């Protein structure tokens, strides 16, 4: 509004001055003002007013032309040239003003009821389940380090789930996992580690695989456990694989998956199929390790177990533990999904409520 009023005043000033004979410098100055007025015109009416003031029959241009003859001959030629330029430039500015004001003005012939505020009608995208998103993203991250995917059955034999993983029946390490058994003597795998054995049996070293899949334990379900859950198993066996490789690769994963500042912490632990064995934690991304509700004030979130493949396991698949070493890790997918998406009850992941799942588009 303010700007428009100022423009009006300028136009009136010009009217007064335009009656006298104008020297070339004055014509040039007037042209600048005319161009500013045209560009500043806020409506078709203002633009028309400017056109009349500068180009109209009683406007500035005819007055300039009329005054040319009274000028000193030394200035006349230049003033004539400027007057022509004045006409060309101001006409162009008015034409441009009309074109751009047309963009918002209704175009004759278009339906008058065009309402862009009605809801969009294109069918929506669906959404991936958070667990399946984390699986695919994990696979993608590990792929970038050269891992390929491997797979194994959910219904396993005792041999692959326990014996080949250095967990004999008469050893207390069997007690760690409460197992579902089938009537035919098979079992539901308690971990994705049997895939390690299946892959190594088929393939000579080097081996570098990740194996996502479902696992089953007889835990009663609560906010952080469910009877079936997903894991990603990682296995890397080659000439000289070290704990540094293990920690660095997991850290690389954590930083890609959760955030660039996430750190990984190892705690010594025991698994029959790795030696040394560790449990590993991610630093809490929610509080940057300062301690909050999510990490139970510790600054760290427990993720899963890992370690250097036990030479006994390598031997059981016919590898030479003197020639190769390896690392293995498990990773709880639900756990990572819960951290990544801020989900605090694992059961939400299996309720399949569309109001919940629809958030992960």
């Amino acid at each position, binding site marked *: 509004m303010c700007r428009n009023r100022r423009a009006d005043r300028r136009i009136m000033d010009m009217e007064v001055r335009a009656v006298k004979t104008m020297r070339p410098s004055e014509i040039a100055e007037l042209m600048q003002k005319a161009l500013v007025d045209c560009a500043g015109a806020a409506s078709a009416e203002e633009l028309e007013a400017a056109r009349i003031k500068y180009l109209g029959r009683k406007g500035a241009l005819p007055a300039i032309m009329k005054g040319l003859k009274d000028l000193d001959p030394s200035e006349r030629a230049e003033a004539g040239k400027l007057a022509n330029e004045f006409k060309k430039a101001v006409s162009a500015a008015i034409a441009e003003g009309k074109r751009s004001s047309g963009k918002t003005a209704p175009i004759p012939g278009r339906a008058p009821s065009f309402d862009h505020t009605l809801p969009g009608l294109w069918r929506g995208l669906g959404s991936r389940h958070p667990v399946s998103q984390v699986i695919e993203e994990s696979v993608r991250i590990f792929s970038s*380090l050269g891992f390929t995917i491997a797979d194994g059955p959910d219904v396993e034999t005792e041999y692959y789930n326990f014996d080949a993983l250095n967990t004999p029946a008469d*050893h*207390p390490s069997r007690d760690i996992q409460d197992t579902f058994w*089938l009537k035919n003597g098979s079992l539901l795998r308690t971990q994705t580690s049997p895939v390690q054995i299946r892959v190594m049996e088929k393939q000579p070293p*080097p081996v570098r695989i990740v194996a996502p899949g479902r696992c089953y334990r007889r835990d009663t379900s609560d906010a952080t456990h469910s009877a079936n859950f997903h894991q990603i198993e990682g296995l890397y066996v080659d000439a000289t694989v070290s704990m540094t490789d293990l920690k660095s690769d997991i850290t690389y994963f954590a930083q890609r998956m959760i955030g660039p500042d996430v750190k990984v912490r*190892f705690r010594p632990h025991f698994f029959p199929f790795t030696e040394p064995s560790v449990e590993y934690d991610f630093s809490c991304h929610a509080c940057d390790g300062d301690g909050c509700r999510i990490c139970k004030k510790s600054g760290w979130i427990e993720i899963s177990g890992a370690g250097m493949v036990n030479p006994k396991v390598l031997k059981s698949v016919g590898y030479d533990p003197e020639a190769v070493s390896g690392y293995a890790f498990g990773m709880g997918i639900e756990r990572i999904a819960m951290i990544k998406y801020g989900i605090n009850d694992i059961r939400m992941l299996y309720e*399949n409520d*569309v109001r919940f799942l629809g958030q992960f588009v």
Partner: protein
Amino acid sequence: MRVPINWLKEYVEFDATPEELADKLTFSGLEVEQIESLGAEYVLEIEVTPNRPDCLSIIGVAREVAALYESQLKWPDADFKEGSERVEALTSVELLDPAGCPRYTARVIDDIKITDSPGWMQERLTQCGVNPINNVVDITNYVMLECGQPMHAFDKKLLRGERIIVRPAAEGEKMATLDGVDREISPDMLMIADARKPVAVAGVMGGAGSEICGDTTTVLLESAYFEPTQNRKTSKMLGLVTESSYRFERGVDIGKVEWASRRAAYLLAEHAGGTVAQGVLDVYPEEAEERRASCRFAKIRELMGVAISNRRIVEILESLELTIEEQDEDSFIVAVPSFRVDLECERDMVEEIARIEGLDKVPDDRPRAEIVPNIDDSALRAVFECRNRLVGLGLIEVMNYSLVSSEIIRKFGFDEGSIVPLLNPISASQDVLRPALLPQMIETLGRNRAHQAAEAGLFEIGRVFRMDKDGKSRESDHLAVGLMGNVGRAIIDKRREAAPEEVFLWMKGIIEKLCSSLRVSNCLSVQKERPYFRAGCAVSVEINGVECGEMGVISLELSEALRVTEPMVVLEMQVKHLLQSVYTVPQARPIPIYPSIVRDVAIVIDDAVQSEQVTELIRKNAPPELTDVNVFDIYRGKGIRDGKRSIAYSLTYQSLERTLTDAEANEFHESIVTSLLKELDAEIRDKK
């Protein structure tokens, strides 16, 4: 394992707060789960992993603390003045199963007066979660907690024949254990017996018949080493896990069996008025061999990826009471003390060095990329493609449990013999592996309806399980899609009710689009009869000519049971057929350059005639210039007789070689329409 800190301090000096100590232990492998404050005492609750039975005792933990704080372990007193009578004169030990019991010791303590144990002892037992009973029993428990060696005290006057026999149970023997249960014992179990009958299940629990009681005056004290595997079997067979069996099955310190007996005798003399008979019966026919591991410094560094010096390696192992026997600059031989049953080889030493040196010393900033050649996992990746296309088609992915209720599965009419049941389910609601995805998909639609979602478009890709005739379970990956209500309509049109046929056709559209994007051909055929589908509203799905799935409208009964009034349509099929051509690369074909001409025809046909029959007839009679046939309108009502409908088709004509003239197009069209009307006995719908 519960560890009162003041008790711990009797054996090792260290300067740290309970929190600092807990941290240090946790990061060296003894995870402190909780610090409990009991008056002036702090009790650490430690999770001892199965490989570290030596830490199931206060002294074991003190040994770790000594290594961590560069301190010295102090052993408690075990020296006392013996009585005049020799133990050999009072009893004897006969070891009939040296494999199951490599070492057995017995002492006899006379003049016992049964009272309460001293207050400090009761307090410590209580702090460790053990109920005080009387001085004799408390002392055996105290020594077990102190050094990890389980002990048993028999009332000697209740033992027959002045001898202890360590033997397998005889066929048909029975015994009553201390907990008052009569137990069937079998010859696989190891017994402690007197001259007549078993008096204890070795390493698990004593018998009720020889229990210490108020009038006990002479105690026979057992301290032994029972073989872990055998012990675990016995404990499993009896379904009986005790503090004692828990330790034996993990492995006690065979080298300290006699010391523990001496320590307990010392305490009995001190706090139960006992006179300890001279000597000990220590039957140890074959002394356990000392374990030795030969190790290479370079290999240890290589496995850790940490530059740790030879000197530091040796220092760490020595702090853990391991003995370095031979050493040069490349390698060394280390002797393992008897209490460390978990250490056998070089690799085990790496763990010891890593955990004491600190795992925080392991670098984390050297991720290592390596391609393993000639590995093809494209088949496993293909399923990601499938999932992403389904999301692109507007469906929400769900995930249901693999375990379902057999009762629900039965209602769906699956063949009983093909179901895979669990032997030990947690509950009846999860007692079999799912044979299909449909039951849960339908239930999921219903549950969402109950949450006021009037529509849903869902999919799941998951594993299903079937039992073979030969009793083997087979698993395969399936896809299920479920549609409910007006999910296929634009938001502004939601109030217009969708008929079951329409929802079915949305589903058909989904499978068509999915298949064409995965470059397989699909067709629907043969009406399926299923208890869960509405009669006449279900079909089987074929991919590249192979039947591999089914889809249909959910039956009214099932809908009603779920309180869903909106139509529900579900599909289930095997995934592998969908994925066979994912990686086929489409090859560009020339786009026709000559313009096409479209002609429409609307015909009135019996409801019984299916749309596809009409299109097939159109194509049958068509010249090669007919490039496309589409339905664009279906009409029933005014002007159309009952039992009939009008279907309008648009036919596209185009030549790859030239521009068709209107006259040519008209001629093609006329000939198609004429033969169509003749073959179908149909009529053209009046254009009015």
